[in-house]
């Protein structure tokens, strides 16, 4: 499955993204989302904070907390981090 990591915010205010093809079973994907999804909307916006989102090829997007990545999926995120590039707006 093709998964895109979108990084926004920061003191520069740029959007960066990176895509990876990864073999996820439905169970694994569900497990990953369960661990990293930010379910609640932030009560207050923090200026210059960085935000992350995962987007599936069908366009479904979820906001993620990258400090909560389970060790099993860390290598997948490492690949995504390595490929981050600024997106033209």
């Amino acid at each position, binding site marked *: 499955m093709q998964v895109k990591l979108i990084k926004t915010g*920061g003191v520069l205010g740029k959007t960066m993204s990176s895509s990876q093809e990864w073999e996820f079973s439905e169970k694994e994907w569900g497990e990953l989302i369960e661990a990293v999804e930010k379910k609640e909307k932030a009560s207050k916006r923090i200026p210059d904070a960085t935000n992350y989102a995962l987007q599936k090829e069908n366009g479904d997007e979820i906001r993620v907390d990258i400090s909560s990545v389970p060790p099993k999926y860390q290598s997948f995120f490492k690949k995504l981090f390595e490929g981050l590039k600024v997106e033209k707006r």
Partner: protein
Amino acid sequence: MKNKLDDALGIDREGTDADKRIRTKRKMLSAISPVRKRLKVTAVATVPSKLHREVYDAHEAPMELGELIWKEGQKKLPVSRDARNVIEGAGHVWKFYKKLFNRNSIDNMGLAIIQTIKYRENPDEPFFNAFWDGEQMFYGTGQKKFTKSFTSDLDIIAHELTHGVVDYEARLKYEFQPGALNESFADVFGILIKQWVNKTPAKKSDWLIGKNILIGVNALRSMKEPGKAYKNDPVFDDDEQVAHMKYYKKLPNTENGDYGGVHINSGIPNQAFYIAATELAGYAWEKAGVIWYAALTDDKLLNKNSDFVDCARATMKKAVSLFGKGSIESKAVELGWKETGVI
């Protein structure tokens, strides 16, 4: 957020209460101060008007606070360059606000300035950013290939701490024009604090924000020439800032849309301040800075929903009340907002 380093070292902070106590105290201070402001209770004598800084090291791991490596009163400074930068930087910011505006720290209530260096949100993602989370500062060491540490520029430290000041004053919403003003006030006081420390007159300043952080790039932003800090950079692409209302970027109020272009359209009020300050010459913090601070801290003139026109009116009103009707100061401020197409 889990403290993975503590886990690795077998430290149980849940059982001890040092970190919890510090954060609770700061949360109480953060919660109390805006209420005091609304109730018009001024800073009380029991709040010492003394600088208090603490520096924590997150050791490149995701953690909320990190290990305490220095606090006010300790004569021996840490070896770490990052630690020294933030100790010195926060000291300059505190002194600037105290000496020029008699402001008692970020909240004007003596809030301790807590800073965490070498912060990461994920062990495999070097953090190239710095931010004030409403309670404390976080700094990353940067992405070695294309950035230096985010403690490298005094104006960035001052920019982020000024977001804290804005949060206790006009409380500008972080979206569209109020958000762009929030960003601009942070840039204005960021550059002013750098100029004040280096005693740089307005006309001799380069007006660049974050000159040392990005490798191979001039700076993060230019207040003199918004949109021209960098171009066709292989990593950062183009500087997207705009300098005039005719180029105002309409973007969605989403994370991907920079909340309506807060870092992009902030170029307009930045340019207005630059024009006013250079028109007045001398030291920018003595006149233009005083006018902008007076506007920011007057809740009858600026509030969470204020837009560029409100800010123009507020600063023009303050220029008149501080320096007189028809003064060169009021004319310079008006010129700044006119030249940028705001009024």
